């Protein structure tokens, strides 16, 4: 019998620390598969965020750097500028990328840094225990929005894919989810396109994953996936967001 599905080579054979049903693990696997398929494991450098995925460096079989909170795009820039032939990817959560790291991601994108960013939007700060994230939905309860996010005081959730796609340096942006086998397969295609975009030297690429945080959402893993489909995907529509054309002003 032939193995038709198993652990990709770029993924380390160690247990992961994620909570049961957390989709960080699925996303890891997709990246590792793409690295394998593109045959770039030996020239890939990953950058892990501060967030639940901080230990990602343990889970991939490639070189890895741990960045300070939010600064992965700057660290990636330093690496990629030094090693232009390498394949550099950042793995970032929504707190990491869209809150503290907003300046760094906008500037990496506008510079057209030839890096790939895997952006894991789970609408919450997972690692620190479920505080509000910049992507927390209106009305969503978290440990720092105990009455539900009130956009009047706490602001509106940020649509990262849309925001970044206004920038000229961006070559590829897509938003995907992993709420079922079909979406997982689509998501992988996006990751692959993002890596290819980098390798072809076209510019900045990013894949935004709608991901789950069952533990902090207080849901079962399956309920969490449903919530992504029924709630998150409405606010954060799936699809490709490659560069939006000039937004013209009326003079």
């Amino acid at each position, binding site marked *: *019998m*032939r*193995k*038709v*599905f*198993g*652990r990709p080579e770029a*993924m380390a054979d160690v*247990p*992961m620390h*994620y*909570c*049961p*049903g*957390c*989709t*960080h*693990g*699925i996303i*890891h*696997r997709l990246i590792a598969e793409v690295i394998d398929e593109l045959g770039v494991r030996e020239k890939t450098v990953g950058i892990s965020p501060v967030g639940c995925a901080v230990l990602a460096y343990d889970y991939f079989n490639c070189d890895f750097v741990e960045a300070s909170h939010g600064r992965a795009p700057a660290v990636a820039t330093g690496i990629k500028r030094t090693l232009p032939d390498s394949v550099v990817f950042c793995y970032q959560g929504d707190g990491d990328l869209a809150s503290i790291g907003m300046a760094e991601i906008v500037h990496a994108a506008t510079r057209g840094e030839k890096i790939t960013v895997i952006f894991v939007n789970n609408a919450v700060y997972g690692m620190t225990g479920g505080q509000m994230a910049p992507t927390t939905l209106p009305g969503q309860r978290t440990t720092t929005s105990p009455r539900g996010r009130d956009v009047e005081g706490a602001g509106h959730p940020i649509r990262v894919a849309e925001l970044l796609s206004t920038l000229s340096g961006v070559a590829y942006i897509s938003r995907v989810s*992993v709420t*079922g*086998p079909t979406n*997982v*397969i689509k998501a992988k295609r996006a990751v692959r396109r993002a890596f290819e975009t980098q390798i072809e030297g076209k510019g900045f690429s990013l894949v935004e994953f709608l991901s789950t945080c*069952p533990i902090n959402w207080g849901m*079962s*893993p*399956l309920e969490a*996936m449903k919530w992504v489909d029924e709630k998150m995907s409405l606010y954060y529509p799936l699809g490709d967001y490659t560069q939006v054309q000039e937004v013209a002003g009326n003079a």
Partner: protein
Amino acid sequence: MAKVVFDEERCKGCELCVAFCPRNLLVMAERFNSKGYHPATIVNPEECNACTYCARMCPEVAIEVYR
């Protein structure tokens, strides 16, 4: 002929594989693994067509599929 192999020690009992097997072949075992989770397991292995859905949905990469 198809086969799914579970790494029971890696399983965290999240039940996602169970939910996404189109043929409803998977269940959670009664037993605990050493982490205290009930591992997922297959009930009618002969009916599996190696569609890999279970494996693709497993966050722990705990499922291998053979054909």
